[in-house]
């Protein structure tokens, strides 16, 4: 008898997991809904390009863009201000997490030219105190260089650890949600003579973002 009871309980438990999204109860003329959920270690990352469909290809916004434009030209004082080409989102209940960003240089179709650039990924997420009340924001930038051949570059192969520990003293770890923040593009400091020598046409490169849980 005990074995059968145990088997029945286990079966019910299993089925409850299979259908553990939401269960609608109907009681007379009233309806209630039970939300069944669970907490697990989870994180995701996403990057979405911004399309610029205007024939003029507006300065400072979207893709594709003109590599000769002033909005992507090198600004030695601040590499965090380039053309806004995409937005990215990171969510994690698994802090701290390590963000790895890799990029390839821009190449033309014939791959006769490589053009290097900086990419700046801004992040911004809420901080909380010991009571779980929002108590500020964490803001920063992850800057990556496409020139991995140059290991002396300060932005070579960057890895950024994001964490969200209570602003109080409890040490409580909170989730990270940085939603739709800017991804900005800026060229290396190329002399005009070099830029003029680049052939006309189309250039492309790939950006990959990886989030690894601790």
């Amino acid at each position, binding site marked *: 008898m005990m*074995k059968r009871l145990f088997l029945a309980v286990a079966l019910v438990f299993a089925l409850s997991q299979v259908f553990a999204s939401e269960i609608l109860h109907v009681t007379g003329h009233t309806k209630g809904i039970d939300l069944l959920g669970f907490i697990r270690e989870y994180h995701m990352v996403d990057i979405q390009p911004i*399309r610029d469909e205007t024939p003029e290809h507006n300065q400072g916004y979207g893709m594709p863009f003109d590599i000769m434009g002033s909005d992507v030209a090198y600004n030695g004082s601040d590499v965090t201000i380039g053309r806004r080409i995409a937005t990215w989102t990171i969510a994690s209940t698994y802090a701290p997490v390590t963000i790895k960003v890799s990029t390839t240089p821009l190449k033309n179709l014939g791959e006769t030219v490589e053009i290097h650039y900086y990419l700046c990924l801004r992040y911004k997420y809420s901080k909380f105190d010991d009571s779980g009340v929002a108590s500020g924001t964490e803001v920063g930038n992850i800057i990556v260089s496409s020139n991995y051949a140059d290991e002396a570059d300060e932005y070579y192969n960057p890895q950024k650890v994001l964490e969200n520990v209570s602003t109080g003293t409890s040490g409580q770890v909170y989730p990270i949600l940085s939603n739709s923040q800017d991804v900005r593009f800026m060229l290396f400091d190329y002399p005009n003579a070099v830029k003029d020598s680049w052939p006309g046409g189309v250039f492309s490169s790939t950006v990959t973002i990886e989030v690894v849980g601790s």
Partner: protein
Amino acid sequence: MNTKAMLCCLVLLLPLVLLFAVDSSVSTTSMTIEAFKKVPTVTTGTFEVTASFYESDTDKTPVSGIGQLFDVSTRASNGTLADFSKVFVVNIKSNYGDKVKFSFRFGPFINQVENSKKLKAAYQVLTETQDWKEVSGGLFTTYRFRFSFSPDVTSVVNDGVVMAFKECSVQGEQKSWYGSSYEPFTIQPGPISQLNTFLEANIYGSLKVEASDYASIDPNVDYVSTIVITMEVTT
């Protein structure tokens, strides 16, 4: 282990499998950066137009494949033309929305024995809108492009060297995999159209000899005019 015990273990494992099935400690995403560089393209081509004047119809032979011979008898009656046509072919790797401007420089018809002897001429330039050329846009979309010339016809009277200009633009349409016909872009493909097509255009011209020049025409020599075509692509 008996059957019930095995079943029990399997049932117990099921929720654990469900619990961890979608969990992952790594998440990855990627994106392609698209950029371009605009460079005006200038291409120049030159060809010659030859007209020969013969004393009788029986002497007529084709001249350099450039059109019709001058007919002396017709010339005598109405001072008409030596028609010619010339196809010029240029290879344009261009983008949707580009503007292509042609300039034509016409010279006089020059006596090939005595260069100082020239004939006045009237030219007419007629270029044609090209056929659509399909370009694959991936699995679900097909694009097609064509060069569309402005409909006007440029006519100049040549007395020395005269310039004429003509423009065309790149038109584009798209068809989705479920569509039955091409429609104007709903999402502009941007400059990355992979458009690499040949532009073929015809120039039709005519040489008109004024009556006052009849007497100066030497029927034993060719008269040659040079036409220079310059093409400039701007994005």
